């Protein structure tokens, strides 16, 4: 019998973390994601699974706690919203540089600066292109429902440990706050310390006579070695690009036009498809689920049979750059978006499609 619950996106993340056997959560309150920490504190996961939950003194401390826990081979995570994620960027680039697996959730709100507490998608560049200093990538997953908030917790950890790389769930204030039906998974046991040693032979679990000491660092003062390390990182990102692309297509079979949208925007676009088709405009939706790796190949294929692509984002136009790169400008690509915490209506999106292409 499947267990169904009505949950907020933020609560789904927290419950999924407990059920996935996550070892530690380190967070700091910020709207619109504080429910993650609140839910965990209320649930007492230390009694359910032994999971450690700690409210840190800052986002900076929280991400560095994640670094410590990840360096010791444990499944650890943090969550925040845009201004807090900016603060975490130092820790994130160190995590990438030390090749540590972990999960970071960004429940995006409008910016820049303190901005607003309403939903936005204006952190795409930060999530996908870097954010911190140096040449690095995060594995970026974009949920479009509360169910995906739940499901992507385990998926993000699987990918993070598979590639020894931080994974980021790029959500937004709408998905974090809205309530939907969620199918809850089985409780998984946390790994024992012996299992952690086996899975992460590189982790700082205590040096015994059987191996050399393990060092977690992102430092190499020798530029030749540092270049070799950077090449290794780039090779890893290439493998991720080859193997981990995920996307969804809705009514693309007969589409003459295409929406490209992720997260909340993709939900809006589903309704827009219906409205447009009622008007006789054949439009479909291409929804990237992984933002890095971006689904370049499939989008390129689809572009060959459509007359125009509208990238719909709650931003000034960030993902649209990757859409253009993917289709190599062989078909017109336009952007439509609202900013500052405004969610576009399905009708507005159809209007934009008509204005730009018809």
């Amino acid at each position: 019998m499947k267990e169904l619950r009505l949950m907020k996106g933020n609560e789904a993340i927290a419950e999924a973390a407990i059920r996935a056997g996550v070892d530690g959560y380190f967070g700091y309150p910020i709207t619109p994601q504080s429910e993650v920490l609140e839910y965990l504190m209320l649930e007492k996961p230390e009694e359910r699974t032994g999971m450690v939950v700690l409210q840190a003194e800052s986002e900076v401390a929280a991400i560095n706690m994640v670094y410590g826990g990840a360096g010791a081979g444990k499944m650890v995570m943090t969550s925040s919203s845009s201004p807090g994620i900016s603060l975490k960027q130092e820790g994130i680039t160190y995590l990438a540089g030390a090749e540590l697996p972990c999960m970071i959730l960004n429940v995006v709100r409008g910016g820049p600066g303190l901005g607003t507490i309403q939903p936005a998608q204006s952190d795409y560049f930060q999530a996908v292109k870097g954010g911190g200093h140096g040449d690095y990538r995060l594995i970026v997953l974009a949920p479009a429902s509360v169910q995906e908030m739940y499901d992507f917790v385990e998926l993000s950890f699987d990918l993070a440990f598979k590639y020894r790389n931080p994974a980021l769930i790029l959500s937004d204030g709408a998905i974090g706050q809205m309530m939907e039906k969620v199918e809850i998974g089985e409780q998984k046991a946390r790994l024992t310390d012996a299992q952690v040693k086996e899975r992460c032979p590189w982790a700082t679990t205590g040096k015994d006579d059987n191996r050399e000491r393990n060092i977690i660092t992102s430092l190499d003062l020798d530029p030749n070695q540092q270049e070799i390390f950077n090449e290794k990182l780039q090779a890893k990102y290439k493998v991720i690009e080859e193997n981990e692309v995920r996307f969804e297509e809705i009514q693309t079979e007969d589409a003459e036009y295409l929406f490209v949208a992720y997260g909340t925007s993709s939900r809006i676009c589903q309704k827009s498809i219906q409205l447009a088709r009622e008007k006789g405009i054949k439009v479909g939706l291409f929804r990237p689920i992984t933002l890095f790796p971006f689904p370049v190949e499939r989008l390129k294929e689809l572009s060959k049979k459509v007359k125009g692509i509208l990238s719909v984002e709650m931003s000034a136009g960030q993902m649209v750059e990757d859409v253009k790169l993917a289709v190599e400008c062989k078909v017109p690509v336009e952007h439509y978006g609202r900013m500052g915490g405004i969610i576009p209506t399905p009708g507005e999106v159809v209007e934009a499609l008509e204005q730009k292409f018809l």
Partner: protein
Amino acid sequence: MAENIVNNDIIKEENLVYKKTDLLTDKSLSYCPGCGHGTAHRLVMEVVEELNAQDQTVGIAPVGCSVLAYEFMDIDMQQAAHGRAPALATAIKRLYPEKYVFTYQGDGDLAAIGTAETIHACNRGENITIIFVNNGIYGMTGGQMAPTTLPGMRSSTSPYGREVESMGAPMKMTELVAQLPGTYFVTRQAVHTPSAVRKAKKAIKKAFENQKLKKGLSFVEIVSNCNSGWKMTPVKSNEWMVDNMFPFYPIGDIKVPEE
């Protein structure tokens, strides 16, 4: 030449009066000759060895002169972002409550950029040991003013001497953290004489042993010299330390648990 000195043909077992702990690697220290870091490293590793805890210890290296501490200490270590070592240690200790976890930090790392992480780890009473090497200056970056630089003391960013009115007074982090309920044992030591070294080692050992009691954080400051940054000979720098640093940073226990 260096190889000849440690050659077993020359130094015979029966002639040995002292042997460095096996928990220090054979890598040449990156510290300036005369610096106290080498001795502080040795003491920490001797304590881990005496506790027979190599396989149960995780150390955190900071950013600063001791950024490469993991090259010299033969235990599992993590290198932290500048000032964040207590945050790393917090998570590791909570995820592995039975392990010994320590941070090894300088004064720029602990008392400037990492002030928040230090104070909050102390306030939460994390069951860890913090080794705080205070030489009153940023050594690695070339002798800039630190939060611990003495009034009137010259550095490359206080070339006319630290002017308290505009640059602030030096911070006594150790006295500060001793005020917090989460600290269990707080002490200030030095490593400039054999007697100071013996006392410092005793304090470090106690600070590690305290982790088994689970009563809070143990904080060991080691007032040290920076002959390069202070632009003095090693001997002169130690004299200067005794005459100037010790009056401001008095050696001794600050918070001792009731037995």
